[in-house]
């Protein structure tokens, strides 16, 4: 468990997630001349993309615009990492990772192991994941469960401006391929970020976003924000909820979660992946395995229902994990 000691740092400013992300990219480009950005949709097609445009002006020649050829440029990112650059490859909408799947899971993830540790692939793959509103079945994916099932990749899922900014620094210093997913709905979330210096946030250290004593919620990415909203609501009903954000799936901080579950005895896992074999399934299974006796009821999962994402806004709201669903799961857990 870590606190969020932004108070002690100088120059802390409230900024949007998108701003913190782009500030991180800027510092990456400033601090390490090996860094190249391949792609330009880091904050999607939102208004925030102007921030990315400012990077073009300040770092000419270090941002590359590949053709619509995901196998080609994702593979090129891997090769560039092998040969001494630190590419941050933007696959943009997470659904497009399926075009480049073989390069990510068969090549990047395996190379260190296959070569007996000889060759490092320090590449970062960035995607915008999640149900964005009207994205329908081919622009709404959350592929992180598949990435978690792929040994060799590190998986980073920030949920706040401070986290995206700090985790990016650690990702950049990581000698392994990192899969980095931002939820499209996080870009407008505002929070404190230290403007000076570049505070790293380590991988494998979960963050307790809210303390509580009745139920533990483990949530990732944008679901952290939704869970915090739900916790606020539940507090008015007298239910005290602890919200834990693992921040990275690989490495995974099981300890912090187990400590909390030993205290609360109840666990709700909130994740936007599809339910079957989703991130929630693994967390539920792990906790059930390691805290069997501490659990006072079954682990409840709030996940996206197992259907392709429908287009209609009415249907979309029904499939995704909402605050109302989180509240209902917590109420059911506390019985």
């Amino acid at each position, binding site marked *: 468990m870590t606190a969020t000691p932004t108070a002690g740092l100088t120059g802390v400013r409230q900024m949007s997630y998108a701003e913190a992300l782009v500030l991180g990219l800027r510092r990456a480009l400033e601090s390490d001349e090996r860094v190249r950005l391949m792609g330009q949709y880091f904050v999607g097609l939102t208004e925030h993309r102007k921030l990315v445009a400012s990077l073009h002006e300040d770092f000419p020649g270090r941002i590359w615009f590949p053709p619509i050829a995901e196998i080609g440029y994702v593979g090129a990112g891997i090769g560039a990492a092998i040969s001494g650059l630190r590419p941050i490859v933007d696959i943009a909408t997470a659904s497009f990772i399926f075009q480049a799947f073989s390069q990510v899971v068969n090549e990047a993830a395996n190379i260190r192991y296959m070569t007996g540790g000889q060759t490092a692939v320090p590449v970062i793959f960035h995607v915008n994941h999640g149900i964005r509103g009207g994205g329908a079945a081919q622009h709404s994916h959350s592929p992180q469960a598949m990435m978690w099932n792929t040994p060799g990749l590190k998986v980073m899922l920030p949920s706040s401006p401070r986290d995206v900014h700090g985790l990016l620094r650690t990702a950049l210093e990581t000698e392994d391929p990192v899969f980095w997913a931002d939820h499209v709905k996080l870009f407008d979330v505002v929070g404190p970020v230290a403007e000076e210096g570049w505070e790293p946030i380590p991988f494998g250290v979960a963050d307790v976003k809210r303390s509580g004593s009745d139920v533990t919620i483990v949530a990732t990415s944008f679901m952290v924000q939704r869970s915090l909203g739900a916790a606020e609501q539940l507090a008015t009903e007298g239910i005290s909820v602890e919200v834990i954000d693992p921040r990275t799936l690989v490495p995974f901080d099981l300890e912090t979660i187990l400590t909390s579950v030993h205290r609360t005895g109840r666990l709700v896992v909130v994740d936007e992946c599809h339910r079957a074999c989703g991130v929630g399934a693994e967390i539920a299974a792990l906790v059930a395995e390691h805290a069997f006796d501490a659990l006072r009821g079954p682990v409840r999962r709030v996940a996206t229902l197992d259907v*392709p994402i429908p287009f209609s806004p009415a249907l979309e709201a029904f499939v995704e994990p909402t605050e109302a669903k989180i509240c209902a799961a917590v109420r059911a857990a506390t019985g």
Partner: protein
Amino acid sequence: MTTVASPETASAGDLVDLLERMWAIRAFEEKVSELYARGRIKGLLHLGIGQEGVAVGAAGQLRTDDLVFAGHRAHAHALAKGADPERLLAELAGRTTGYCAGKGGSMHISAPDVGFVTATGVVAGNIPLALGAAFAAVLRERDTVAVAFFGDGAGQTGAFHESLNIASLWNLPLLLVCENNGYAEFTPLSAHTKVERIGEYARTYGIPTATVDGNDVLAVGSAVAEGVLRARAGGGPTFVEALTYRLRGHYEGDPAKYRELAELAEWKAKDPILRFTAVLVERGALDPDGTRAAEIEREARDRVARASEGALAAPIPGPDDLLRHVYAGAPG
């Protein structure tokens, strides 16, 4: 949908019909744009205003049982193939009466009853699908043609190349129609490839290739007619590259600042509807003072307005609809 006779021998009625079809699409897309601005339609919306000549020219040569697979900018292809504007608009607005009952939206429209099989949100994702439909036609001994519409951006994808190779090797009845509008998403083609014409790839695989003015509905029709004839006769695939231009951004809301105003003005002057109207006047199919042309436009807009009212009055799907259609058979 009836096939339009070859452009050379087309009757005045056939020609006016082509103009009406282009107006039907233009009116539809402008209405959709308006509804999107008003928040009545959500999601990513890609309009093909300015490219109507390709869809109408090509679809005019197809039968209902010819199967069309299109990309993310597909309203025109669906309408040209005969899709019902009201059901299409209802789909864009996420209504139960939409073609896909609200599950597809703009990028995934599907109207199989008129031979518009599906659109796809993945660049070039539809090309292998059309290839498969062409393969099925051969195996089932049908003389139908499969058609893939795609943009110049698709030319840089692996799926495109793999499909061209197989279509040529297996001599499949596939029509590949590339709408080269000069921009792959937000980037001029020259930044994506050294290839100037996407048709150059097709030639390397031995596929007969025609490059035509995509804003000339008759030129597109001629090239496609030749390809359809070849495909039906067992002569294999044809590649038609139609040079055109989208007058809107990549998606609704894209300010498209990556383009020069002069370029835009130049292409506005080449608007396929304006040009074809002039041709029809010249051929005597329309009166020179523009009365009939204005009427055609008004009728198209009226029809779309009615379709829009009907579509927006339709119910929004409920939770009961959600879990249907994941599987054709027993649910998983």
